[in-house]
C-alpha cells in the first residue's frame, strides 16, 4: 500500500494507511511500530484522531453490513467509476453465493 499512499497526494498517506491496516491486524509489533511512527511524525493528537477514525469505521461498517442498509442511489451513481476501478463492487459477491447456505 505504500506506493498507493505516496501517489494520493495526501500528506503522510503511507503512514496512515499502514496505521489503519495495523489497527485491524492482531500483530502487536506491527501496531506498536505504526503507532510510534504516526506519533513521532504527525504528533500525538494525530495518533488519537487516526485511532478514533479507525475505531469509528470498524464499527460503522458493521452497522451497514448487518442491517442491509443500502447505499443511497445518488451516492452509488457518483462513485460508480472508482468503486469499479478499486474492486469495491466485488466485495459483496460472496453474498450471491447464498445457495450454499
Amino acid at each position, binding site marked *: *500500500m505504500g506506493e498507493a499512499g505516496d501517489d*494520493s497526494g*495526501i*500528506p*503522510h*498517506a503511507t503512514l*496512515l*494507511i499502514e*496505521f*489503519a*491496516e495495523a*489497527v*485491524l491486524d*492482531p500483530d502487536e509489533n506491527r*501496531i*506498536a511500530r505504526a*503507532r510510534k511512527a504516526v*506519533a513521532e511524525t*504527525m*504528533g*500525538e*493528537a*494525530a*495518533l*488519537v*484522531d*487516526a*485511532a*478514533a*477514525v*479507525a*475505531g*469509528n*469505521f*470498524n*464499527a*460503522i*461498517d*458493521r*452497522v*451497514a*453490513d*448487518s*442491517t*442491509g*442498509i*443500502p*447505499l*443511497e442511489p445518488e451516492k452509488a451513481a457518483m462513485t460508480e467509476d472508482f468503486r469499479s476501478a*478499486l474492486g*469495491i*463492487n466485488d*466485495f*459483496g459477491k*460472496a*453474498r450471491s*453465493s*447464498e445457495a*450454499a*447456505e
Partner: protein
Amino acid sequence: MATLSFDAAPVPIRDDIRADLPEVWADIGRPGTWLTAERRVAIAAEARNATHCTLCAERKAALSPFTVKGAHDILGDLPENYVELIHRVMTDSGRLSRKWHEAIVATGMTKGEYVETVGVIVCTVGIDTFHRGIGMDPPPLPEPEAGDPTPYTPPGLEHELAWVPTIDPARIGPDEAPLYEGGPAHIRRALTAVPATVRSFWKMANVLYLPGHQMRDFANEYRAITHAQIELVAGRVSALNQCVY
C-alpha cells in the same frame, strides 16, 4: 460505576472523547429497550471472544462461509442465535446476507432485539479499536445495572429500505426527530428501530469521527488530521472490512 477512563492513557485524549466514550460504555451495562443489562454485557463479552473463534477463522478463509460447518468457541452465556449473530458480525461482516439475517430472526429473535444486539456489538468494537489504536488495553466491561428493559417501538417504521425496520423520515415522530438532524442519510436510519441504540451509537461516532456538519465543512479542519487524511484512514478500514456501503 464507570469502567472506562482515559486517566492512564499514554497520549493526551480530547475532552469530547473523555466525556462521551465513558457514557457510551456505561450504557452497555444498563437495561436496554429489549435486552437486560446482563444480556447486553454478555453480548459485549462474546463480541470480544469471537475474534478468537476457530470456526469463524475457518469460515473467514473459505470461499463461502456457508460451506464450513462446526461449532463456535463460546463463553456460554448466550443462546445459539445470539452467538451466530455476534460472531459473524465481528469476524465476517462483509459477507452477511439477507438470507442469513432472516435465518437469525426466524429462530425467535425479534428485529428489535437484533438491532439492539448489533448496537452493543458495534459500540464494543468501536471503543476497543480506539483503545488499540492509542496503545491502551480494552476497558473492563461494565457491571450490569439492576432494572428491566423499557420496550419501545417508535412510530413511522417502514420495512422496505433495509433488512431491519427503519424510521421513515416522512413519518417520524417528535421524540425521534433529532435522530435525523443533519439529514436522514441511510446509515443514520440503520438502527432507528431502537432509538436508544441510535443515540448511544452516534454519541460514540460523533466524537470518534465528525458530527455531520463538520464532516461536510471542507473549508475548516476540526481534528489534528485533515478531512482527506480522515477519509484515507476510513477508506482503508472499510476496504479491509469489505464494506460495500
